């Protein structure tokens, strides 16, 4: 065995061991995080989480935060879905290979990972400040503003998946419909979006998973509220915001509540991503 050959063999063995180690390290840390969330979260689960509001502090639950999260996420998705689907449709069907279309597609990818805290400040400037000025301070922070901030974060996710899914629809489908004299808008709304429906739903679910853990943009928009708020123009609590608040609190009991909230969010997000994967997987199989 020549020295060169031996050196190459050793280099290869070392590199392959290191790559395996890297994978193990990565997985170990991620497992550690997940394990702690499960352990501490399940330990803190209690019926009062779902029945009491945060106003009771240590003896309270997280009911208003969960309801607030649901409302804010719903507003976010309700705003982002139609805009995102239509914008994605424009990119795929009308503006493919045009200069404006390409630049918007490009900028959308950047918006996808833009810092969410800046989006929160943007919504603070365009919604919270004007509503404070217009109502003389009666309406300042609001669940609606939180929803808009989350919509800005969900929007690029939905635009991108819609765009990608529509471009996967075979062009024979378009040609068949157009040759029957169907106008393009009808073709788009009634045939293409329907054909790409499961992919678009996946995108919406992914966007929901993405926004349901967002904390930073909610701090200056929905702000937080210790009592139940159902009206979107009121200040509203949300799970990530209450986790942030309780984790920074010195009390041990507050930390337990924060872990419980973290557990609920993590489960929600993991289930959503699993569900979206399953939908995508099923449609892939049915198309083959």
């Amino acid at each position, binding site marked *: 065995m020549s020295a060169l050959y031996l050196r190459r063999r050793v*280099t*290869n063995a070392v*590199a*392959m061991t290191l*790559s*395996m*180690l*890297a*994978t193990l*390290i*990565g*997985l170990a840390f*991620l497992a*550690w*995080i997940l394990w702690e*969330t499960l352990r*501490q979260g399940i330990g803190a689960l209690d019926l009062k989480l779902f029945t009491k509001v945060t106003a009771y502090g240590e003896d309270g639950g997280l009911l208003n935060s969960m309801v607030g999260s649901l409302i804010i996420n719903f507003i976010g998705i309700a705003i982002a879905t139609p*805009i995102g689907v*239509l*914008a994605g449709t*424009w*990119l795929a*069907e*009308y*503006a493919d290979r045009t200069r404006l*279309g390409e630049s*918007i597609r490009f*900028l959308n990818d*950047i*918006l996808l*990972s*833009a*810092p969410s*805290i800046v*989006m929160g*400040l*943007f919504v603070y*400037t365009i919604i919270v400040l004007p509503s404070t000025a217009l109502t003389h301070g009666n309406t300042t922070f609001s669940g609606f503003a939180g929803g808009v901030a989350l919509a*800005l974060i969900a*929007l690029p996710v939905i635009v991108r998946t819609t765009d990608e899914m529509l471009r996967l629809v075979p062009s024979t489908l378009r040609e068949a419909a157009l040759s029957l004299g169907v*106008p*393009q*808008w009808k073709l*788009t709304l009634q045939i293409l979006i329907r054909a790409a429906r499961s992919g678009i739903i996946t995108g919406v679910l992914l966007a929901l*998973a993405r926004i349901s*853990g967002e*904390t*930073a943009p909610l701090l*200056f928009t929905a702000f937080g509220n210790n009592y139940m708020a159902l009206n979107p123009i009121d200040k509203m609590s949300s799970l*990530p915001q209450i986790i*942030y608040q309780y*984790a920074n609190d010195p009390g041990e009991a507050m*930390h337990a509540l*924060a*872990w419980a909230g*973290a557990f609920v*969010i993590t489960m929600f*997000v993991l289930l959503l991503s*699993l569900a979206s*994967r399953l939908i995508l997987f099923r449609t892939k199989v049915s198309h083959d």
Partner: protein
Amino acid sequence: MPATEASIMSTDILEQRSRRDARNERLFRWLLKGCALIVLASLLGAAGATLWGGRDAFGTFGWHFLVSSEWDPGNDVYGAMVPVYGTVATSFIALLIAVPISFGIAVYLSEVAPTWLRTPVSSAIELLAGIPSIIYGMWGLFVFAPFFADHVKPWLTSNLGNKPDDGKLSWVAEHVPFVGKLFGSDYPFGASILVAGIVLAIMIIPFISSVMREVFQTVPTRLKESAYALGSSTWEVSWDIVLPYTRSAVIGGIFLGLGRALGETMAVTFVLGNAMHLSASLLDPGASIASTIANQFSEAAGLQKSALMALAFLLFVVTFIVLLIARLMLRRLASKEGR
């Protein structure tokens, strides 16, 4: 004649219908385009709103804002140096740790691992990429930072730092420049720039490794097979064939991770300690742009609020440039493939 009348009528109807279709088509087009422009507007709006909000700070301090490390709400004097340094330092540490590990993961999953293991491991990693950043922050605050303070930090300060507990400088601290300063600290807690960097690294590993794995899979099989046929080892194929072929996209993936790290708020805020002073030590607490905003914005008013907005503008511009480079790099591989 009835026949002609009918045909005239039907052409009328046809004409009407095609006119209506054309009108709907135009409306529909405008609606779609308007929605797409909202994407553009939100990017421009975010930059504009933060610049507008920060105008007082920029106007009052001018260029001094960028280089001053003073942050004193009592005297209403603000400089961006401390949070900018914190942001850059934590992101740099995160990349230093995350890039080699992600590369290892990507090589392992695309070249080494048995086929049956690849899909489950990579979907597990991708699933974990979806975990909200606040969970990473909580884990960092309650689990990792105490662990670090108990087990890692004492070793670092006594063996590398210039402020060891027993007062005896180690050989490294005495003879290697800078190292002593980097690891010297008499701050008793775990929260520090180094811990924030580590937590960030763990958070961006799934992003970078899945981008790398994806681009590694675009390398044509015949290229790799040819190298194997010439007797290359797996490592040589990865380093000399796969990596050069995908270089621009790999850099793009790294920049994508950097963009995430720079703008990340929650994972960092919990473990950075939020101290508004500059320290050379990585084991001392610091502040990042995002953590400063998250901590102070609700209670800030006047010039302080404006300074925070100005910080947000800086952050937005920097991440925009980083992400722009990332996307351009990623696109170069796509155009190579003829997509």
